[in-house]
């Protein structure tokens, strides 16, 4: 039995740092009784609710720059291949570029376990239900990771094609994955995550024919919604097209 009901359900794994960002409930109790009529006052605020996140993201960006680290935020639906792409990428860059990984999921450290490599700092951020990573979670992850000598930080966001688009983490590049299995029209259905991307990876091209995937339509949709984004077609599984992605990463350094 897990003695602490608040603690993450998964057990810690050697080599994987767990960062649990669930907040304790410390909200004050409500005072009793109904308010007196006519005694209320109005306060005009005009506060942006994402201001706090944006400030923290700017602080993360500065922190990383001062240490010579470039950060790449990988976003996509669940199951489009972020972890597999990272596995291939880390193996290909081993011995060439020192990397580190922050990986976010609602529960479990399964992804961090898959990404464990000799000498690779990797931390699992367990959001406990939150559907995206935010800048404060990244700040805590950065504190937990030994980043000496690291030049490239990968942030694997929570699998979700909606919410991560709204949250700047302080990354240098946002890379959105779209797998052939998801259909050609995802960029039209979920535009913010594409309009905010520096690059779009079209993954699983090895099975495109089997799925009847219309490549030209997908590329047209991506270009229509995100004309600014560089498009990389690859299969993380077979490594087809992986070299262009690796060159894209090398060019960031």
């Amino acid at each position, binding site marked *: 039995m897990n003695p602490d009901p608040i603690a993450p359900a998964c057990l810690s794994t050697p080599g994987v740092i767990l960062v649990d960002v669930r907040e304790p409930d410390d*909200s004050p*109790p409500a005072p009793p009784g109904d308010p007196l009529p006519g005694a209320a*006052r*109005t306060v005009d*605020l*005009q506060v942006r609710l994402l201001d706090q996140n944006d400030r923290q993201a700017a602080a993360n960006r500065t922190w990383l720059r001062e240490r010579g680290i470039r950060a790449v935020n990988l976003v996509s639906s669940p199951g489009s291949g972020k972890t597999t792409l990272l596995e291939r990428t880390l193996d290909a860059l081993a011995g060439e570029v020192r990397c580190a990984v922050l990986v976010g999921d609602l529960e479990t450290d399964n992804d961090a376990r898959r990404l464990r490599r000799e000498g690779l700092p990797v931390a699992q951020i367990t959001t406990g239900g*939150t*559907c995206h990573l935010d800048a404060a979670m990244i700040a805590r992850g950065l504190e937990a990771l030994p980043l000496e000598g690291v030049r490239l930080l990968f942030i694997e966001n929570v699998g979700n094609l909606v919410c991560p688009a709204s949250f700047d983490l302080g990354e240098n590049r946002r890379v959105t994955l779209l797998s052939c299995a998801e259909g050609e029209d995802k960029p039209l259905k979920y535009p913010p995550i594409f309009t905010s991307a520096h690059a779009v990876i079209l993954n699983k091209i090895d099975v495109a024919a089997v799925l009847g995937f219309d490549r030209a339509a997908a590329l047209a949709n991506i270009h*229509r919604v995100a004309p600014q984004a560089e498009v990389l077609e690859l299969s993380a599984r077979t490594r087809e097209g992986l070299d262009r992605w690796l060159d894209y990463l090398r060019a960031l350094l």
Partner: protein
Amino acid sequence: MHELGIAESALDLALDQARQAGATRVLRLVLRVGALSGVDPEALQFAFTAVLPGTAAEGASVQIDAVPAVAYCPDCQRDFSPDTHLFFECPVCGRVCGAIKQGRELDLVRLELI
């Protein structure tokens, strides 16, 4: 989908303001939510029912004002309202444009305190 976190942020801000103003309760929160903010007003309204109880804002009314999207075409130099908020194709010249003038708002604009 992250409306719960947004509601918590708004509540934290409201409780801070109430403390600073020496108020004991928050009676009303007014928010402005843009069509492109990624936040669903109904889900946000529902999220408040989860976060307000047990706080000094318990029972407060929450007003969420929706802000429609407005885009701008630099070629035609005119504003247009995207008929869907999927992408921003100028109805005159057909240029797909990323210039959003309005619709990303996600603001806490007003509180009533006592």
